[in-house]
C-alpha cells in the first residue's frame, strides 16, 4: 500500500499544532532572555512548557484518530518562509505524531527528572532553557512539512545538543566533545543539504507533499544519489558508521541530556529521515535501501562490541544506543515491512533506554558523579527503586519475552531475515552480544561486591527523580506488546509510510526468535560468570587485543585523527603559510620591488642642477631631432 495523500488542514487542535513548537520555544526564550530574574522559577517553567506541549500533542493525536485512516495526513500551512523556495508548514500524520508523543512525553519526564538531578547546579535555568530549545527544535524536525523546515530542526537539535553536551563547558573535555559532536554532525548535514539541493533541482519543490505528488521523474541515478546523501545525513545525526565517533564523547553532557537527546530522541532523527523519505528515495531493494541496511547492521555490531568493553556506565549505554539505532536503521532499510518495527523499536527504545540512562544518572547522582562501573557494585540494596526500574529496562533491551524490546526487536530480526538471511543472522548475533554487555553492566553495577570509593555514600534518589523512572519502566514493560500485537502500530502508521502487501504475523516460536533467545541467555550467563559471580577488579585489566579494539571505539577516533584531523591541521598550517608568504608575500614583494626600484631611481636626482640642465638640454635636442625626423618623413 502506498502512503496516503497529504491534504491541507485548518481548524481544530491540529490547526494550532504550531503551539507544540511555540510553547517550548517561548519557554527557552523567556529563560534565556529573562536572565537571573527567572532563576527561581526557571525549572518549573521549563517543565510546564514541555508538559503543555505534551498535552497539545495528545489532543492533536486524538483529533487525528478521529479522521478516516486515509485522511490522516494533514498539512498545516504557516507562512511563506523563503519566497521562491519554500513555505513553512507542519505535517501532522501518524508518523510525526508518534514522534511528537515520544518527544514531548519522554521529554516531559526527563524535564521533571532534571529538576532533581540538576538541583544543585547554579546554571539550572540555562539547562532548562536549552532543554526547551531542544524540544522545540526536535518537534520542528519531525513536524515540518518540507525538507528545509526539517533541516532547520535538524540543525536546531544539533545546536541544542552542542549546548547541552558542553553544558559544563568549563571542563575542556566537555567543550571539545560538544564541538566534535557539532562538527561531525555538520559532515552529515553536508550530505543532507546536498540531498535537499538535488531534490529541489529534480522536483522544483522541497515539500514532502510536493515531492510525493510531483509529476517529475528524475533518473534512477538521481534518486539513488539523493538516497545516499540522505543516508549520510542520517548517519551523522544517528551516530551510524562512519560518523559514529561523536556519540561516545557526547556522554560528557549531563545525564538527562544523554537520556533525552543521545538515546531517546535526537539520535533517532536519522531513522525518521529514512522512514519519512522511504517511499520516494529508499524503495525496497534499491541501492540506497541496501546501503541503509548495511550501515544499520555494521553499526549494530560495532555499537554492541564497543558496549562490551566500556567501563564507563554512560559510554556502555551509548554503545548500546548506537547498536539499537543500528537495528532501527536495518529495519528502515528493509522497506515498508520494516518501517513499523523501526519506529516501534524507536519508541520502546526511547522508553527503556531513557529509563536506563536516567537510572544510570540516579546511580551517578548517588555515587558523587562516578561513572566507572568498576567502582560500583552491590547497589541493588541501597537503591531499590532505581535497581528495579533499571532491571526492567535491562530486560526490555535484551528482549526478555513479553517485555517491550522482545516484540520490537524480534520484529526487526524477523523482517530482516525475510529480506536477507545474512543480515538477519548478523542481527541475531548482535542481540546475543547485547545480552552479554547489558548483563555485564547490570551485574557490575548492582550485584557483586561493593567497590565504592571511600567517600561514596549511595542513597536512593528523591521522588522527583524516581517517579519518571517508574513511569518509563511501565512503558518499557507494556508498550512493545501494545504496539506490535495485532499489527496495531503498522496499521496506524500505514497512511504515512505505506505497508507491505502481506501483514506479518507474530510467531513467538520462530527459529530466529528461539535462536535469539538462546544467544541472549548465553550472553547473560557468560556475563554472570565473568562479572556477577567472579570478582571484578577495580582497575581494568589490560585485556586482549580485541578488548583494546573495543575499548578504543574500534579505532574510530584514531582513524578520524589519522585521516582528517592531522592532514587537516597540516593543510591549515600550509594554507596559512601560503597566505602569508605566498599571496601576501607576492603582494608585499611587488610593493617592495617598486619601493626598491624607486629607491634606486631617485639617485638620479643628484641635486646637481647642472645634471638636470644636461638632461633638459639632451631632451630638447631629442625633441628637435624628432621634430626633424617627423617633419621630413
Amino acid at each position, binding site marked *: 500500500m502506498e502512503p496516503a495523500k497529504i491534504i491541507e488542514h485548518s481548524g481544530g487542535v491540529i490547526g494550532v499544532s504550531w503551539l507544540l513548537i511555540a510553547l517550548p520555544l517561548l519557554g527557552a526564550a523567556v529563560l534565556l532572555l529573562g536572565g537571573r530574574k527567572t532563576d527561581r522559577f526557571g525549572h518549573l517553567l521549563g517543565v510546564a512548557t514541555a508538559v503543555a506541549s505534551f498535552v497539545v500533542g495528545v489532543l492533536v493525536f486524538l483529533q487525528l484518530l478521529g479522521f478516516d485512516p486515509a485522511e490522516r495526513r494533514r498539512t498545516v500551512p504557516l507562512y511563506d518562509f523563503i519566497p521562491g523556495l519554500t513555505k513553512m508548514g507542519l505535517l501532522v500524520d501518524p508518523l510525526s505524531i508518534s514522534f511528537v508523543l515520544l518527544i514531548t512525553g519522554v521529554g516531559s519526564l526527563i524535564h521533571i527528572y532534571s529538576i532533581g538531578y540538576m538541583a544543585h547546579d547554579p546554571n539550572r535555568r540555562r539547562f532548562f532553557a536549552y532543554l526547551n530549545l531542544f524540544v522545540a527544535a526536535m518537534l520542528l524536525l519531525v513536524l515540518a512539512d518540507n525538507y528545509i523546515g526539517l533541516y532547520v530542526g535538524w540543525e536546531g537539535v544539533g545546536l541544542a545538543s552542542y549546548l547541552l553536551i558542553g553544558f559544563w563547558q568549563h571542563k575542556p573535555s566537555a567543550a571539545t566533545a*560538544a564541538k566534535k559532536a557539532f562538527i561531525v554532525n555538520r559532515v552529515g548535514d553536508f550530505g543532507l543539504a546536498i540531498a535537499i539541493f538535488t531534490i529541489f533541482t529534480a522536483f522544483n519543490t522541497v515539500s514532502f507533499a510536493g515531492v510525493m505528488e510531483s509529476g517529475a521523474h528524475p533518473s534512477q541515478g538521481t534518486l539513488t544519489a539523493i538516497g545516499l546523501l540522505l543516508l549520510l545525513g542520517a548517519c551523522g545525526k544517528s551516530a551510524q558508521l562512519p560518523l559514529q565517533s561523536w556519540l561516545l564523547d557526547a556522554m560528557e553532557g549531563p545525564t538527562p541530556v544523554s537520556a533525552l537527546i543521545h538515546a531517546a530522541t535526537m539520535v533517532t532523527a536519522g531513522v525518521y529521515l529514512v522512514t519519512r523519505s522511504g517511499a520516494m528515495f529508499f524503495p525496497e531493494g534499491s541501492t540506497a535501501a541496501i546501503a541503509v541496511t548495511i550501515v544499520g547492521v555494521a553499526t549494530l555490531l560495532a555499537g554492541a562490541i564497543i558496549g562490551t568493553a566500556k567501563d564507563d556506565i554512560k559510554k556502555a549505554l551509548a554503545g548500546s544506543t548506537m547498536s539499537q539505532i543500528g537495528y532501527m536503521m536495518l529495519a528502515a532499510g528493509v522497506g515498508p515491512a520494516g518501517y513499523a518495527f523501526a519506529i516501534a523499536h524507536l519508541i520502546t527504545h526511547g522508553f527503556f533506554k531513557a529509563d536506563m540512562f536516567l537510572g544510570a544518572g540516579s546511580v551517578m547522582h548517588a555515587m558523587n558523579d562516578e561513572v566507572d562501573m568498576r567502582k560500583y557494585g552491590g547497589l541493588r540494596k541501597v537503591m531499590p527503586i532505581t535497581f528495579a526500574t533499571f532491571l526492567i529496562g535491562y530486560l526490555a533491551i535484551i528482549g526478555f519475552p513479553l517485555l517491550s524490546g522482545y516484540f520490537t526487536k524480534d520484529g526487526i530480526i524477523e523482517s530482516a531475515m525475510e529480506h536477507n538471511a545474512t543480515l538477519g543472522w548478523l542481527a541475531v548475533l548482535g542481540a546475543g552480544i547485547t545480552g552479554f554487555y547489558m548483563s555485564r553492566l547490570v551485574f557490575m553495577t548492582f550485584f557483586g561486591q561493593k567497590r565504592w570509593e571511600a567517600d561514596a555514600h549511595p542513597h536512593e534518589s528523591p521522588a522527583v527523580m524516581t517517579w519518571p523512572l517508574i513511569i518509563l519502566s511501565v512503558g518499557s514493560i507494556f508498550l512493545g506488546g501494545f504496539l506490535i500485537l495485532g499489527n496495531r502500530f503498522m496499521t496506524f502508521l500505514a497512511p504515512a509510510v505505506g505497508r507491505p502487501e502481506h501483514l506479518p504475523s507474530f510467531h513467538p516460536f520462530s527459529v530466529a526468535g528461539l535462536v535469539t533467545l538462546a544467544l541472549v541467555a548465553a550472553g547473560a550467563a557468560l556475563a554472570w560468570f565473568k562479572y556477577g559471580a567472579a570478582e571484578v577488579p577495580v582497575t581494568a585489566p589490560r585485556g586482549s587485543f580485541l578488548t583494546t579494539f573495543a575499548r578504543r571505539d574500534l579505532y574510530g577516533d584514531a582513524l578520524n585523527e589519522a585521516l582528517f584531523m592531522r592532514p587537516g591541521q597540516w593543510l591549515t598550517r600550509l594554507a596559512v603559510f601560503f597566505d602569508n608568504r605566498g599571496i601576501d608575500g607576492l603582494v608585499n614583494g611587488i610593493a617592495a620591488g617598486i619601493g626598491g626600484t624607486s629607491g634606486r631611481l631617485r639617485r638620479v636626482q643628484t641635486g646637481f642642477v647642472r645634471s638636470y640642465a644636461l638632461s633638459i638640454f639632451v631632451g630638447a635636442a631629442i625633441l628637435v631631432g624628432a621634430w626633424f625626423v617627423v617633419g621630413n618623413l
Partner: protein
Amino acid sequence: MHYWLSTLIGVPVVGAIGVAAVKNDQRAKQATLGISLLVLALAVAMAVQFSPNGDKFQFTETYNWVPSFGVHFGLGVDGIALVLILLSVVLVPIVVLASWHEAEKGKRSARTYFALLLVLEAMMIGVFAATDVFLFYVFFEAMLIPMYFMIGSYGGAQRSYAAVKFLLYSLFGGLLMLVAVIALYTIAGKGSFMFSDLVGSIQDVGTQKWLFLGFFIAFAIKAPLWPFHTWLPDAAAQAPAGAAVLLVGVLDKVGTYGMLRFCLELFPDASHYFTPLVLVLSVVGIVYGAIVAIGQTDMKRLIAYTSISHFGFITLGVFAITVNAASGATLYMVNHGFSTGALFLIAGFLIHRRGSQYISDYGGVQKVAPLLAGTFLVAGLSGLALPGLNSFVSEFMVLIGSYETQPVYAIIATSGVVLAAIYILWMYQRTMNGPTADSVREMKDLNGREKWVLAPLIAVIIALGFFPKPLLDVINPAVKDSISQVQHVQEASKASVAQEGQ
C-alpha cells in the same frame, strides 16, 4: 520629484560638518548618534514607500553635474540597493554607539572620528543610490578617504601599514575601473554616463570582455575575492572594531553589489564568458578562506578570513545566474553585514577589556561574562549559517540556486559549511570555554551601552532567520531584472550549442 535620496546623503554630510565643528567630544558623540538615528528614520520612511513591483528604479533624482561629458548626479534605488542602504543606515548608529570610547586612543580627536563616520555613511548611501556610472565611481573612490583615516589614525599597532595597503589595493582596482568607465562612455558614444543609457549599449563581445575585466577586478579587490584578499585581514585586524564593521559589513559589499549591478547588466556576454573563472575563484575563496581562518591566532584576522569565505558564497550566488542564487547573494550581503558586524563588535568588546587580539590570551570567558559569551555564540552561529539565524536563509538560497546550474561548484562550496563549524566553534571554545584564564578573571560582562549595541543586531539576526520575506520580496524582482540579460545570453549559447550538436 522626490528628494529622499539627496536628503539621505545630505543629512550626514551636514551633520559631519557640524560634528567636526563642535568643540566638546561628548556633545559630538551625542550629535552623531542623533544624526545617524535621524538618517535611519528617514531611510525607513523611504523604504516603506518603496513598491517592490513598481518601476525598476524608484525615488529617482537626476541633476546635471558635468554637462559637457554627460555626467549626472543621478540617484535612484531598486530593491538591491534599497536593502543595502538599509543595512548601512542600521549599522551606522550601532557602530556609533559601539565606538563610544574607541576613538579616544586615536591620533586625532574623537569628534573627527565621528565626523568621518558620518561622511562615510553619506558615501555608502551615495554609492548604492548612484544611477550614474561616473557618480558611482566617484563615491566608490571617495569612500576610501574616511576609511583610510579611520584605520590610519585610530587603528592598532600596525595601522599605517594596514591603511596604506588598503588604500593602494582599492585605488589600484578603482583606477582600472576608471579606465573601463571612460572607455565605456567613449565606446558607447551615448554622451551620457547614466546607467540606464549605457545598459545594452555595448554589443561587441570582445569589447565587453575588456570592460568587464576593468570593472570586475575593481570589484574583486573590493569584495574581496581570492586571490585579491590579503588586504582585508590586515585592514580589518588593525581597524577599530566599529570601522571594521563598516569596512567588512558595508564597504566590501560595494564590490559584490557592483558585480551584480554593473558587470552582469552592462556586460552580459562577457559575464557569461567569465562565469567559470569567477566561480572557480569563488569556490577557492570559500574553502581557502575557511581553512586559513581555522589557522588564525588573531581573533579579528580570523573573522576577516571567515568573511573572505563568505564573500566567496556571495560571488558564487551572483554568478550562478539563477534567481534563487542571486537573491540569496543579495540577502547574504545584508545578513553578512549583520552577523559579521556583530562578531567584530563583540570581538572588539573583548579586546577592549583584555587588550589583546590573540585568541590564546583568552579562555573560559563564558564563566565570568555569560552574556558576552552568549551573544558571541549567537553571532558566531549566524556566521556558520545555523538554520534559524539570518545567514542560513541566504547561504541555503545561494547554494540551492547555484546547484541548479553549477552542481559541482555548489557541492564544493557546501563543504565550506563544515569548515565554518570548525573555525567558529574552535574559536568559541578557545576563548569562551574551558577553565577561566587568570587574565580574564576580572572581566566585566556587557554594560548597558554594549547591550544596546548588540540587542538590535541579535534581534535582526534572529528575525531575518525566520522571516526573511520582507527583504526577499523587495530583492526578488530587482534580481530577476538584473540577471535576465545574462540568462538570455546563456539560453542563446545553449541553443547554439544544441544546433551545432545536431
